[in-house]
């Protein structure tokens, strides 16, 4: 199995990601000052938003990968395999990030608004994306592992994109005409800015590393299928 393919960078990315995370943690806990109103709890905010941003990107990437998969005509072609691998990788990492967002969100909301869960537009949107990712993985698991099953999952990822716009619009308006006062995080202080960008970068590297590793694993699975297949072809003669 050729290691030189573009998705061979897994291990390097993993090391890079760990370094970035350590730096980000340092920035969050030691550089950024305590936020005036929220106090120490505000420290959750950095990695929470970092995860949320990457979840959204993963969702968009999964949708685009699904679109390319459906458009590529030939079944076993290299392109359709790569995008299929990216599709499943972004979905799995998307679910992981979604779980993080949905756990850290309420912990932060507990202090910010005094309740564990509020139907605040962004949290609700994250919940919907998380559910769509779960549905994607369930489709891949139960709707057939052959090309048709992957096609259905890709279809969901594609239709998820316009759906996201409608969900976002509806959720914004759902709280009634007055969207709640949303805590912006007040990143005016340089220390906080650094912490914020460091943690967003860290989460991005973690996500990219996980996606690359999982995608490569999926491609190796397809390679394995080919090799088993060539064996099967051998017997026929």
């Amino acid at each position, binding site marked *: 199995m050729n290691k030189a393919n573009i998705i061979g960078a897994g291990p390097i990315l993993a090391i890079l990601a760990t370094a970035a995370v350590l730096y980000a943690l340092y920035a969050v806990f030691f550089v950024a000052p305590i936020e005036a109103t929220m106090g120490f709890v505000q420290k959750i905010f950095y990695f929470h938003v970092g995860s949320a941003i990457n979840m959204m990107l993963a969702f968009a990437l999964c949708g685009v990968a699904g679109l390319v998969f459906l458009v590529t005509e030939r079944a076993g072609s290299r392109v359709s395999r790569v995008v299929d691998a990216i599709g499943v990788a972004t979905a799995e990492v998307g679910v992981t990030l979604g779980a993080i967002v949905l756990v850290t969100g309420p912990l932060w909301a507990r202090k910010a608004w005094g309740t564990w869960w509020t139907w605040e537009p962004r949290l609700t949107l994250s919940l919907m994306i998380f559910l769509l990712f779960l549905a994607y993985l*369930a489709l891949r698991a139960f709707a057939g592992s052959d090309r048709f099953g992957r096609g259905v999952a890709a279809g969901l990822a594609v*239709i998820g994109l316009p759906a996201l716009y409608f969900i976002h619009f509806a959720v914004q308006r759902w709280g009634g005409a007055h969207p709640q006062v949303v805590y912006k995080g007040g990143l005016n202080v340089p220390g906080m800015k650094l912490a914020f960008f460091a943690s967003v970068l860290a989460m991005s590297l973690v996500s990219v590393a996980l996606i690359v590793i999982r995608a490569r694993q999926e491609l190796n699975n397809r390679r394995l299928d080919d090799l088993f297949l060539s064996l099967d072809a051998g017997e026929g003669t």
Partner: protein
Amino acid sequence: MSSLRHFAVILRKDLAMEFRTRDILYPMALFSLLLVVVFSFAFLSDPTRVRDYGPGIIWVTVLFASTVGQNRLFDRERENGCLWAMLLTPASRSAIFAAKATGHFLFTVFMELLTVPLIILFFDLSVPRPGPFLGALLLGTLGLSLVGTLFSAMLMNARMKEVLLPLVTFPLLMPVVIAGVKVTSLAVGAPLAEDVSMWLRFLIGFDMIFAVATLLLFERMIRS
């Protein structure tokens, strides 16, 4: 022109089979009636605020009953492989999809004719503005049918179809339910100050975009 004729003949075939066996209508109707009764027990304990629950109950009933319908929509096509029987004829895929979606839409509307008046009765809702009330119901049901028919066709042979279908369609249909509840509550005279037409335009936009998206996807996904 021929695809219009195909659309008509497929729809007529579905309606004919349905009125002969009624194995989509009966489960939908019975399920929704049961749901309404259960909701009445659940919510009538507090008569003062009962009117607030009305719109929500209408839309939950419509959503669940339409899912029951979707689950069984392609059962006849699964028996004897008839979906492929249609796909291997010159009939266009969009005609097939549109006919099945319209079929499901009609079944759901029929079910609504039964249960919505009941809900209005049980929850003594007054409907000062019937226009938006019916508009939201019809537009919302269309949205449910479009998304539902697409994935009902795709999951026809899937093992855990009954679980997968709601899991896949509910997040996608969430905006329809939200918009539906909004308009229904405004139509029922709740004091909310929002303007109804914005949500109705939202529903129309949803239906148009998803009509195109589901048609295209049906074509691609069936062949992938």
